[in-house]
């Protein structure tokens, strides 16, 4: 029992470390919030009129923007993990009588906090821009749960990327994928409008069912089997990356 207590205590300490980092690097927090907000404004006010009319489009695009924001912010975890690996601070943690996985758990927990702040801010700006969700309390709760699953999966994926990257710059490159994938989905335009080959990719990549689920929960559009697909996709990614991170951590530190 005490083992479990200390394992949790260590993870809490590490989470505190991650949160302190957050307050020490306000600029990177701002970037990860400003970027999605700017993108939303660009799409709503510049392209929106041409795509579907501004008011209709803001309601269409916000769920995608929220996921883009979370994906981008989750991948920042990779940079933190790589930094720990290359600066020697990991040797300090590993020479302590603690469970060394708490280092990684701390990074992911801090990522969840960071995303919670960013998501709330992005949603507030969205409402100002005309976003009108019609979700019930239960649907908000469900949306939160799906978002949490998404953030956890992307964060652990980022941990793996961080463990694989040789330096922080390489780890930073990983955010590019997170930023690019939503464009190849139903985030900004319905996939029916895309060329056939592209549509094939867009329809079958994991972000599309997640976006459709969020849109359904927040705006009442049909969800269909998107909910199950996204649980399968991101649940799968989460399990694989969580286990993979353990293996990669051992390999990275056994030098």
């Amino acid at each position, binding site marked *: 029992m005490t083992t479990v207590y*200390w394992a949790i*205590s*260590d993870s809490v*300490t590490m989470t*505190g*470390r991650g949160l*302190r*980092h957050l307050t*020490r*690097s306000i600029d990177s927090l701002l970037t990860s919030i400003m970027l999605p907000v700017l993108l939303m404004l660009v799409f709503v006010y510049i392209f929106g009129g041409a795509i579907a009319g501004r008011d209709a489009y803001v309601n269409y695009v916000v769920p995608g923007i929220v996921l883009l924001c979370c994906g981008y912010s989750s991948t920042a975890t990779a940079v933190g993990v790589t930094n720990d690996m290359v*600066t*020697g*601070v*990991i*040797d*300090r*943690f*590993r*020479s*302590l*009588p*603690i469970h060394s996985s708490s280092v990684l758990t701390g990074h992911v927990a801090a990522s969840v906090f960071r995303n919670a702040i960013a998501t709330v801010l992005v949603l507030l700006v969205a409402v100002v821009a005309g976003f009108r969700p019609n979700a019930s309390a239960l649907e908000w709760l469900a949306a939160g749960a799906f978002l949490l699953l998404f953030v956890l999966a992307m964060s652990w994926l980022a941990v793996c990327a961080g463990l694989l990257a040789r330096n922080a710059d390489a780890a930073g490159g990983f955010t590019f994928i997170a930023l690019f994938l939503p464009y190849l989905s139903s985030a900004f335009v319905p996939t029916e409008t895309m060329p056939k080959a592209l549509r094939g990719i867009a329809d079958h990549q994991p972000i599309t069912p997640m976006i459709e689920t969020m849109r359904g929960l927040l705006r009442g559009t049909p969800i269909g089997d998107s909910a199950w697909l996204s649980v399968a996709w991101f649940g799968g990614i989460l399990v694989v990356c969580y286990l993979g991170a353990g293996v990669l951590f051992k390999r990275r*530190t*056994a*030098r």
Partner: protein
Amino acid sequence: MTTDVIVRTTGLRKSYGKTEVLAGVDLAVRRGSVFALLGPNGAGKTTTVRILATLLRADGGRAEVAGHDVTTESAKVRTKISLTGQYAAVDELLTGEENLQMIGKLLHLPRARRRERTQRLLEQFDLVEAAGRAVKTYSGGMRRRLDLAVSLLAQPEVIFLDEPTTGLDPRSRQDMWQVVRDLARGGATIFLTTQYLEEADQLADHIAVLDNGRLIAEGTADQLKSSLAGEQVELHLADAVAYDLATRLFNGTALHADAERRSLRIATDGSAAGVRLLLNDLADRAIAVEKITLRRPTLDDAFLSLTGGKR
């Protein structure tokens, strides 16, 4: 005998791919002593320390720290040791005090004890003023001191210092030496690695010289020095004629001859009688000597003669 030894390795081996880094290393470190593992870059010093600190698994041989096997009882070993590496293992974004508090929490020290230790270590390492600043604003010496302070939170029995002064300016190096001496006086066992002979000479009770993954010499600083030729007399001759005469007199037995400075180095037993005989010899032949210097070989001489031949 066994209870006296706190770190022991037998036949320690480690390879990275085809490169053999440790080729069977036997070490024994007495409790409460300062032990220096001395060697050039790439000799295997860091690898040895990382194995002893449970960060790395050896390919062969055994290693015990504080009575526990580093492989099978690594968790127990970790409660008895601390490691300060070549690169300060501190969190750059946190302040000095936050670093100490965080590690204190991870060591599961009770809150009151954590506070007390943090305060005392900040004072001991002259970091009170910098305690509230982010570590990224610290100088190299301050980082190293904080790193060491962090590693002492738990009051470990064995303190591993991997090249504790590499990259520090002379002043910070002196400070660090003083810190190590204080720690040793406090009763901890200190296992340090260094590539500076002077450092080993200044600090260590016992020195082991590592080269290419093998121990090539072991002993006290004095023993290592005297394993070379003993004392030497350096003669500075008055002029070129005297230098020529003296060179002929010693007829190739001089250890070192420098025509430009007109100096010759001659082996001696270091006794007054021996030196007097030598000087009488010169005086009898009217060879004018300007001045003489008695010289003991430095650890550098010992080190170069031990490692130099094989390179």
